[in-house]
């Protein structure tokens, strides 16, 4: 299936001269963007789940071939390799991590089992939550008998109110090793304020097992994973890292070794869900979760800036899910409110992306209890057996089947002609399961299925946008991934225009190619910025600045260890802030790194008030309640390379696109079947090209559907712009 996606007509002047490789290992496909001497090559190959280094090397081999080189010839010329992977998630689902022991504060051994009460909610979609007879809390990654409380206690001020009983620690450690512990997580209450006891426990473990190799009994301290208030999320962050650490190392080392063997000597960078990347040795497992979609978001931000758009909805239609990310005011600063990895709520800062159960494989069914209403998803036929049209045994009608029946997909040329679709099977499934019971024609039923899934996606976008305090009409939509262009006209909703990319199918790898090297350092410290009642600004600048200085020093030390010059780094400070009496904080950007005057305090407050009002409501701004800082988050980054998107050379003459054929498509908006022109994307990449709907545009991995009321034009960057005709 490996193939080359050629550059569109015309040549690009690439501003970058660095030679780089970006690989995104997804659940189904592994995508790559390779840039050598200013020329870009895009590759796509099936993921090899049994050994991810195989698909990784395969796409690189394919890319090297495009430059008439072997990997051994190419590798020494490459300056940076960036990598995003789903390995962490796979291992979590398979539950094949090591047996771990958790050492916590005595009396609090059940904290991760209690799970803040309704732990069963975490990782469920809204529509899966109501049925209590069938809910269950997830099976813990560390069973109860592997959790031991030690005699110690630190209070909220960081004062030791119960000294650590070292003999007790030794007894508990030995007990856990006897029960099979092959690694330890140490998470004690208030350790992020005073880590003394956590460190002492690590020292004791080392003393007890000094004859063992350090890597044999790894010890993870919660305060070193994330220095934030909230023992549940902090502990789980540490547990996930400990649980996944070994599998990650094995997987990444295998990949890394093969590249090194081929002669690569540059850094091996992992894409993080913070929106940056970092050296593989500085990467903890939870940071890699959802790296692909986050890379796409970062790429979108850069493209948006380039083409002069401030607000973007990035939407990816996959087989089972519809993933949405937002660029707002030229920034990707929206973080998950309570980030959940699989079923586990964690404390690390993670860029927000939303996943809805709607995709090509989503199954359409009738709800017989509720008046035979049509429901599409969240159940999915997946890639196996897949839609009925795949003819692999699937009998349930899916969105892809509807698209085929409507004439939008080409049964002969699906996935570049590498997969034959069965129109008959698709029709049969829709007829039996939907059309006949409802007394509709098959094609009418297909149109209903498509309308419902499009509307669900559009409604999900609207909800995400308005929750940030914006309107969909203020956004552009980037339709990425394999299925995005097929449905974009339907889920566009009130958004005025959609942008379609020639490199849509490898968009995540494209996005990671511009990622900065970034680290995020966080520390929870409750600090009063504005006094309640008197509304007096704080004068304790020293305390604020001391926290920042501590984080900056930590960042610089790590940058230097990685071989970077801190002078090249840029620093951004964000704060979790809240009004007095409120429980939920809001992550706020800051005008500067330090506070040195009352003006600085009020400038910071103003920023907070603006962001808080936009996200929630100006009605609940409450300055008389006082203003507090809960957590400091310092983002330090070393700039990555420039965006790989230039205006097409002006000498290229615009040419009128000609259809490569026609086929009948069903357009409910104009009352039925119409012979519809079909275009090949290769033929219309020149700026100025215009196609009026109805039309179909086929590329190797995607099919763009242009309904009768829409048109597609090609902009100066060679990007497709889909808009309403009027």
């Amino acid at each position, binding site marked *: 299936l490996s193939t080359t996606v050629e550059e569109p007509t015309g040549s690009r002047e690439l501003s970058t001269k660095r030679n780089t490789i970006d690989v995104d290992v997804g659940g189904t496909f592994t995508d790559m963007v390779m840039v050598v001497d200013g020329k870009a090559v895009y590759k796509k190959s099936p993921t090899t789940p049994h050994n991810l280094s195989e698909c990784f090397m395969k796409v690189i081999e394919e890319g090297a071939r495009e430059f008439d080189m072997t990997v051994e010839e190419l590798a020494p010329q490459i300056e940076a390799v960036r990598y995003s992977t789903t390995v962490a998630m796979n291992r979590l689902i398979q539950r094949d991590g090591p047996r771990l022991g958790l050492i916590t504060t*005595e*009396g*609090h051994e*059940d*904290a991760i*089992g*209690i*799970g*803040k*009460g*309704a732990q069963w*909610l975490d990782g469920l979609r*809204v*529509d899966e939550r109501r049925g*209590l*007879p069938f*809910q*269950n809390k997830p099976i813990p990654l560390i069973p*109860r*008998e592997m959790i031991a*409380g030690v005699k*110690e206690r630190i*209070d*909220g001020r960081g004062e030791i*109110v*119960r000294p650590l*009983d070292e003999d007790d620690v030794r007894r508990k450690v030995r007990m856990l090793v006897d029960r099979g512990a092959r690694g330890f997580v140490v998470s004690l*209450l*208030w350790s992020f304020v005073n880590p003394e006891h956590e460190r002492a426990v690590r020292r004791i473990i080392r003393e007890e097992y000094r004859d063992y190799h350090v890597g044999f009994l790894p010890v993870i301290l919660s305060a070193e994973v994330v220095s934030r*208030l*909230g023992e549940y*999320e902090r502990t789980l962050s540490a547990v996930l890292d400990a649980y996944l650490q070994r599998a990650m190392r094995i997987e990444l080392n295998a990949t890394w070794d093969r590249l090194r063997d081929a002669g690569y000597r540059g850094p091996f960078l992992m894409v993080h869900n913070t929106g940056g990347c970092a050296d593989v040795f500085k990467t903890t497992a939870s940071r890699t979760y959802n790296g692909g979609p986050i890379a796409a978001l970062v790429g979108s931000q850069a493209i948006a800036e380039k083409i002069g758009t401030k607000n973007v909805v990035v939407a990816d239609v996959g087989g089972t899910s519809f993933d949405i990310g937002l660029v707002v005011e030229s920034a990707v600063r929206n973080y998950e409110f309570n980030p959940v990895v699989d079923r586990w709520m964690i404390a690390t800062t993670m860029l927000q992306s939303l996943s809805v159960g709607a995709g090509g494989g989503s199954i359409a069914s009738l709800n017989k*209890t*509720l*008046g035979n209403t*049509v*429901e599409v998803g969240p159940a999915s036929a997946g890639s196996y057996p897949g839609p009925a049209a795949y003819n692999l045994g699937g009998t349930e009608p899916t969105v892809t089947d509807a698209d085929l029946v409507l004439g939008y997909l080409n049964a002969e040329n699906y996935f570049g002609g590498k997969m034959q679709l069965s129109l008959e099977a698709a029709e049969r499934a829709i007829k039996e399961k939907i059309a006949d019971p*409802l007394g*509709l024609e098959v094609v009418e039923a297909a*149109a209903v299925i498509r*309308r*419902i899934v499009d*509307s669900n996606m559009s*409604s999900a976008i*609207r*909800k995400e946008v*308005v929750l940030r305090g914006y309107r969909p009409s203020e956004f552009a939509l980037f339709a990425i991934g394999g299925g995005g262009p097929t449905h974009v006209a339907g889920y566009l909703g*009130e958004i005025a225009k959609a942008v379609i990319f020639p490199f849509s199918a490898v968009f995540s790898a494209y996005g990671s190619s511009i990622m900065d090297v970034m680290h995020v350092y966080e520390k929870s410290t*409750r600090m009063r910025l504005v006094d*309640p009642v008197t509304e007096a600004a704080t004068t304790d600048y020293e305390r604020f600045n001391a926290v920042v200085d501590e984080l900056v020093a930590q960042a610089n030390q790590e940058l230097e260890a990685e071989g970077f010059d801190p002078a090249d780094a840029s620093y951004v400070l964000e704060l979790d802030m809240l009004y007095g*009496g*409120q*429980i939920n904080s809001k992550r706020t950007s800051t005008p500067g790194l330090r506070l040195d005057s009352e003006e600085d305090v009020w400038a910071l407050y103003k920023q907070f008030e603006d962001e808080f009002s936009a*996200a*929630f*409501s100006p*009605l609940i701004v409450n300055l*008389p*309640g*006082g203003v507090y800082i809960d957590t400091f988050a310092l983002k330090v980054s070393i700039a990555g390379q420039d965006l790989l998107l230039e205006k097409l050379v002006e000498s290229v003459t615009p040419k009128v696109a000609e259809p490569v054929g026609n086929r009948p498509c069903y357009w409910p908006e104009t009352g039925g079947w119409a012979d519809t022109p079909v275009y090949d994307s290769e033929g219309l990449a020149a700026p100025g090209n215009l196609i009026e709907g109805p039309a179909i545009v086929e590329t190797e991995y995607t099919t763009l559907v242009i309904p009768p009321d829409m048109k597609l034009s090609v902009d100066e960057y060679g990007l497709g712009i889909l808009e309403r005709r009027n």
Partner: protein
Amino acid sequence: MAIPSASEKLRMIQIEPATADELRAVDTLKPGDYEVGFQRTNDLVDESLEVFMRSSRSTMGVAGDAMVALFTAQGDLVNGAAGTYLHAIVQPIIIKYILQNYEDSPGIADGDLWFANDALYGGIHNPDMVVLMPVFHEGKLIAWCGAASHESETGASEPGGMPIGADSRFMEGLNLPPVKIGENFELRKDWLEVFNAFGIRAPQMMITDLKARCTAADRARTRVLEMAEKEGQDFVVGLFRKMLIVAEEGARKRISSWPDGIFRAVAFADAVGIDMGLVRAANLTVTKRDDELILDFEGTSPESASPSNAHIQAVVGHLSNYFYSYLFFDLPISSATFAPIEVRAPEGSLLNPSDRAGTSCSVMICTGVMSAAPNAFAKMIFSTQDWDRVSAAAANAGNGHIIAGNSQWGLPFADNIAYTLNTDGQGGRPTQPGMHAAHFGHCPFGRAPNIELIENEFPMIIPLSQHQTDSCGFGAQRGGAAVVQLWVAHQAPEVQFLCNSNNSKLTTTQPLFGGYGPAVQPGISVRGADIMQRMRDESGALTLDFESLLQGGQINGTWENEFLGRTVRSYDEGDVITFALSGGGPGYGDPLDSDPEAVVRDIIDGTVSEWAADNIYRIVWDRERERVEVAATDELRAAEREARKARGKTWDEFQAEWSTKRPAEEILHHYGSWPDGAPVTAGLAAA
């Protein structure tokens, strides 16, 4: 105009007949319109609820004790996001009251903000406050939107909004019938001052939460209007009516699939307010015929001079908590799903009291409704295709532990700590145990805070927070465990405390099909406690574990063991304010039918004790290897079954003996006549 009677309120919960205009609009819907529109309403109420929760200030609101809902122009509920289902199901009464009484004066206009919190006029209890907004499109009233949440303050005789010592509505603080508090999309200043005055203990919280309700209702209103603009007015009107039609069909279809018959269950309580005594909190007879249900609470104890009475619509609200989580979890949250259900309760009873009755703790007495209903319906549907929706009732303890005073940050505070509320155990289920620390029965999606968050906000330290051993009801499938915490006053000279709870002598929730009830919940505190000194000076000698602490010798001081419900009192720094307890879930089925391996796992996890394994579950196991001795267990269980038979009596023998039994007179003063629970006086209405 008059205060609506119980029968009027019950009628107002029922859906109004479709108008000709609504039916015409339904006919304009095209295939797919209903599905698309229904999902749109889901997303818009979810969006509004999210904004609502992020904007709220009381911990109850933040924890999710809130809802946003949509109604037809006539006031029938068509969809809602919760939070708490009970908020949604009763709002039609408020809207219909406004429509019937206020059309001329003060008039109903675009931009109105309507408020209500008086249970007499249709609410649950007065901490539950709602803001409703009419939706006008092109001059026509096409819908209503509402946002309700629980306020932890009402200006009552005690802090926290649920004055457990109140003897009538006159001690319960702010009680407003439906009133217009804003016009032209703005809150009126005079009304804001009313809230300021009643919220004098926590004025910022009161005002902020009021504005949050307005924000959420207006957010929903805006989205409904956008839908009308984009799809047309008929789309919205037709969609909302069709949602009622489809939901009612779904409910009737579900009900008609169950067997006809009469099914009974009863739940008791051990107090009304803080006055201990036996009460029949819910005596439920369900009559099922065809596609209709009658739920009759005849035989429930008489109303009391306490805050623990519930007006009839609150009973329906509490039934919705159970229905929408278990029987109807896949049906829309809609007035129409309750259309086939008739609810009756005798006048003058706890569940249909006089106008003067205190009802601020109606949610506590209605735990009887939430406990009796699952057991009655279990008997109806255990053998149907819906067998797997059967469950023993949840713990339904909902223990409200409230602290107040000045925090370590120098700020005054009063709040209901959401930990014990949100960690009740779930009841046992046919093929699996109940979840430990699962949820708050009233609000299944609420979350407990981190210990570090509580200690950061409030002047106390929590040296212990764990699943409570043997707190669950035992059974073939046990209930979920409760959580026990130790609260010690810390970093402040004193802390005020009160507790809205009962279940110290008997638990209201009942087991199912031979399971056991969960543990009772005592009110334990230790004044002059030395625990902080022992932690500091004798770290190694102290074991922080509930069982060990109760054995004695671990904490010295003056131990107090009281009823869990307590009026406000003060504790000094270092005192054990209380052992804060949630409730365990009751068990399902005979413990002798349990899987012995599961019992061993429960022992290892600390869920059940070895004592319970020996004496209740009757298992034999190798403590070293943690393995079940299968043959020996079978033998022991067989012997116990034989012993039971030997202890058994014929029905006539049992009845002859049982019918002569009578509880001590001293605990029957709130019960009513023995054994029927009928009023023994003319009731409070005549007082």
